[in-house]
């Protein structure tokens, strides 16, 4: 496998996981724009556990637990207490940025030395198995949404929460479950970044990937399978930066830093969004 394709896959996987999680939540009718913060928390926990001597697999699991807690916390605020999810998400980003920086400073002290963790070993396809499995996540979600009773309920919570409630089911419970799942996937996405391509922690290490994942969901029109090509596209665009650092094109490096954001913006402009969005997206639970 050539270097570029490998890097592109490694960079697509975190985006894909985070976007898949966000899609679950948005299909249930809520929205977490603090996905960047959740990814950051996942990245930090994976780093901290890895520094503690645990295996990369254990770090991944620890990040998933942290993500679960983050998702439930979001559900407490934005679903159960019905605070505006946009505001909760904005503040969550701020909190996650501050808290991970605080914790990192405590762990690393004032030393400027780079602290690295062990990365996931390569697996069957030349990339770590967890990364390969990430590409199955949208497929699983697609089948789950279409084929299972729980999947239909989740969709109902996003399309017609009143109807779900009239069946005697709790919209709050469904959306909270979705928030928990999205927290786990978002944190796993952040952790995977640390455990594959950038095995150290710096403040804001996720570099806006959570925001890109948000755009991916809109771009994919809330359809899980459409996340695959979209994430691969943005992952490849991001990979150009790494390619460039190794020396190459004459274009300024920062252009490639800006490129994922520009591509996502262009995609949104072309997609002319509202079509395909869950009808009750961002609504308060009845």
């Amino acid at each position, binding site marked *: 496998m050539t270097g570029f394709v490998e890097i592109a896959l490694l960079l697509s996987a975190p985006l894909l996981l985070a976007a898949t999680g966000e899609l679950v939540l948005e299909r249930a009718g809520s929205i977490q724009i603090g996905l960047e913060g959740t990814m950051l928390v996942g990245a930090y926990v994976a780093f901290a556990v890895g520094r503690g001597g645990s295996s990369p697999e254990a770090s991944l699991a620890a990040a998933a637990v942290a993500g679960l807690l983050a998702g439930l916390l979001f559900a407490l605020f934005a679903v159960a207490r019905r*605070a505006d999810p946009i505001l909760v998400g904005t*503040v969550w980003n701020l909190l996650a940025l*501050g808290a991970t920086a*605080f914790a990192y400073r405590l762990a690393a002290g004032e030393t400027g030395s780079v602290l690295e963790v062990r990365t996931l070993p390569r697996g069957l396809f030349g990339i770590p198995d967890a990364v390969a499995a990430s590409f199955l996540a949208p497929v699983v979600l697609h089948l789950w949404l279409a084929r299972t009773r729980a999947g239909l309920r989740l969709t109902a919570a996003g399309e017609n929460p009143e109807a779900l409630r009239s069946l005697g089911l709790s919209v709050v419970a469904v959306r909270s479950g979705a928030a928990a799942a999205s927290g786990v996937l978002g944190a796993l996405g952040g952790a995977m970044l640390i455990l594959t391509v950038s095995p150290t922690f710096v403040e804001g290490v996720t570099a806006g990937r959570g925001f890109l994942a948000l755009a991916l969901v809109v771009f994919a029109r809330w359809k899980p399978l459409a996340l695959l090509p979209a994430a691969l596209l943005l992952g490849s665009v991001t990979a150009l930066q790494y390619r460039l650092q190794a020396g190459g094109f004459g274009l300024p*490096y*920062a*252009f490639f*830093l800006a490129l994922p954001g520009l591509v996502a913006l262009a995609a*949104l402009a072309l997609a002319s969004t509202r079509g395909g969005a869950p009808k009750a997206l961002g609504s308060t639970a009845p």
Partner: protein
Amino acid sequence: MKARTVLGVAIGTLAAAALLVLLAGASPADAFAALLRGAFGSKAAVGETAARSTGLVLTAVAAVVAFRAGVLNIGLEGQFLAGAAAAAAVGPLFPDLPIAARAAVVFAAPLAGALQAAPAVWLAEKRQVPPVLSTILLNLVAVAGVTWLVRGPLRDPAGDYPQSRALSDAVLLSPLVPGARATAAVLAALGLAATAAFLLARTPLGLALRAVGEAPRAARAAGLPDVRLRSGAFLASGALAGLAGGLEVLALTGRLYDPFSAGVGYSGIAAALLGGMTPLGGAASGFLFAALGAGSSALQRDAGVPSALASIVPALAVLGLLLARGGRTAESSR
């Protein structure tokens, strides 16, 4: 808002802060004293707090202007950076003509902030792209833009670091009181907060903006120019954040470097929320956040508690408020 809510949130936030201080191995009482000393304990400390409040007050007011008109402008960070970049570009043009240089900064920075918001305005009104998404992505583009500018077109050829050429000392705003960092920029920020408060509460334009923000369909049906009002508020919000970035360069840093902002745009939104989505409340919260920032820098120096505390505590306070109040808070708490 009930006094009990405020008290509850304040106590909860203080308790959480004390816990963090304990985690960092310091005594909460000592830390609190150090924090207060760092924020208000001397002329220099007060000056530091006031100086830091400029950007927070202005971005808080910027958030209020947009949110009250119903525009969720999460792009203040990017607009702040655009303003700072514009200031770094035009500020050094007239090293011996302070008036001209300052005028150029005060003109260019808001313009750059508004231009940074402009694509989101277009996307919102013409392509129905929610500003929440577009402004977040534009923030990423702005961050990359700063990275490029300080290594490319604006790079100081004399320095070793990737940073822009410095504004001359004659151009930089001088302290209001010798020995304190605060400049006239603070007064400008407070003046703009008061102006925004007056505009929103007491003028036909403010009434129209509040109507569009509260009930866009009703405002439109009543014959208010909804698109123009929303777009205008969005651009004005961008301009205020841009001015914040410009004044940061003109009053404090004197140049652009990378990374330039530690999330002042996001903190401005938090300050606006804590201030009940009013310009004066937002300004007061911004000042409080600035005191916290100045105090926790001292705290890191004196007691080894990481200064990131200054961004955790405001976030906790706002979360506490959201938890206590529940419901929708984007509209005002009139």
